[in-house]
């Protein structure tokens, strides 16, 4: 159980996929315009990563080494198709606002990276820990980025149609540049520098 928790915690801080490894940036930047989108993307990634890690680690003895990458890709692509269709059927508005970034989870380097670096070498049980930790790390990052973008860009914070707070002054004149694509780059750049300043990650 000790190593299980260690493997899980690894993905949250020390090997955070977004802030430390700089992996899977496309969805982090693209769908972080609102917290709702961020949660939707996190849930999708959690499902795909968890299922992919379980399948890959369970089959690791039978997957020939030479064709392992194509095998991983087929497994991941199938899982992503399931998520894409499920979102379309059960939460159409979310599916619409995530758009093509749901099928693009296939090429999210975090998932293929974990299949190759962790799940293909470890037991199913440990791979579950890895998937949960990595997803929490990814989710925390994307929620953090979308928090700043939504608050600065619209002056208020709405989560699932419930208004949590609005910033006086900013709500009337929101800095809407943060909702535009370039706002994502600014927020992520400053957050990365902040984590280095805090000593969470190393400087170059």
């Amino acid at each position: 159980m000790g190593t299980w928790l260690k493997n899980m915690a690894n993905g949250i801080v020390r090997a955070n996929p977004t802030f430390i490894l700089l992996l899977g940036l496309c969805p982090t930047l693209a769908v972080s315009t609102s917290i709702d989108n961020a949660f939707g993307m996190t849930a999708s990634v959690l499902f795909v990563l968890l299922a992919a890690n379980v399948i890959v680690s369970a089959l690791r003895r039978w997957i020939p080494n030479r064709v392992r990458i194509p095998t991983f890709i087929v497994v991941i692509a199938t899982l992503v198709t399931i998520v894409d269709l499920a979102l379309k059927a059960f939460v159409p508005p979310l599916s619409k606002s995530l758009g093509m970034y749901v099928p693009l989870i296939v090429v999210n380097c975090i998932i293929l990276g974990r299949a190759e670096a962790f799940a293909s070498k470890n037991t199913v049980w440990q791979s579950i820990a890895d998937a949960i930790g990595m997803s929490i790390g990814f989710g925390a990052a994307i929620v953090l980025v979308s928090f700043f973008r939504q608050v600065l860009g619209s002056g208020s914070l709405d989560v699932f149609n419930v208004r949590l707070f609005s910033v006086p002054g900013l709500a009337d004149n929101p800095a809407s540049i943060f909702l535009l694509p370039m706002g994502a780059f600014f927020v992520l750049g400053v957050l990365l520098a902040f984590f280095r300043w805090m000593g969470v990650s190393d400087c170059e």
Partner: protein
Amino acid sequence: MTVSELIAIFFGMALVNNMVLSKFLGLCPFFGVSKKLSSAFSMGIAVVLVMLVASAVTWPLFHYLLVPYGFEFMRTVIFILVIASLVQIIEMTIKRTNMTLYNALGIYLPLITTNCAVLGITFINIDQQYGFLQALVAALGAGAGFTLVLLIMSGIRERLDLADIPRVFRGAPIAFIVAGLLGLAFLAFGGMVG
């Protein structure tokens, strides 16, 4: 379909809806390979090549094989497999025919399989309901736009190496800020294509 329409698609994909700056696709190579001008150019050319071939293959595959049999939902699986095999084939062909080109592009080609910009453009071609020629022009425009920002970015980063940047901002953080400013500059192209 007129020539001016094709030109509009090309510039729309290259400048207005730039892959990197407005769609956030292909960020890994954008930050990974933009440290030197020469490698940025090779990477850009490799991406243009793969995007063109991928669009030329996936478009007919989708419209003449998946649609008639009602298999549209399989497109994610099919497209990624097609792109992965295409990249392999292109790599082997270049290796056999042109060793100079292979030495320049070789190490970048395998990376392109997981470049979301390539998979992204094949999805965009389908979602925008482009015809075959339009899809090819869109792929060319997207690739050209990707190469353009990659070149600009690597030029800026070569100069940034000499700049006195606060320690915590060195490397990745400043690269993100620069990308943001670049995106701001590219906003000016917004009114160009309707």
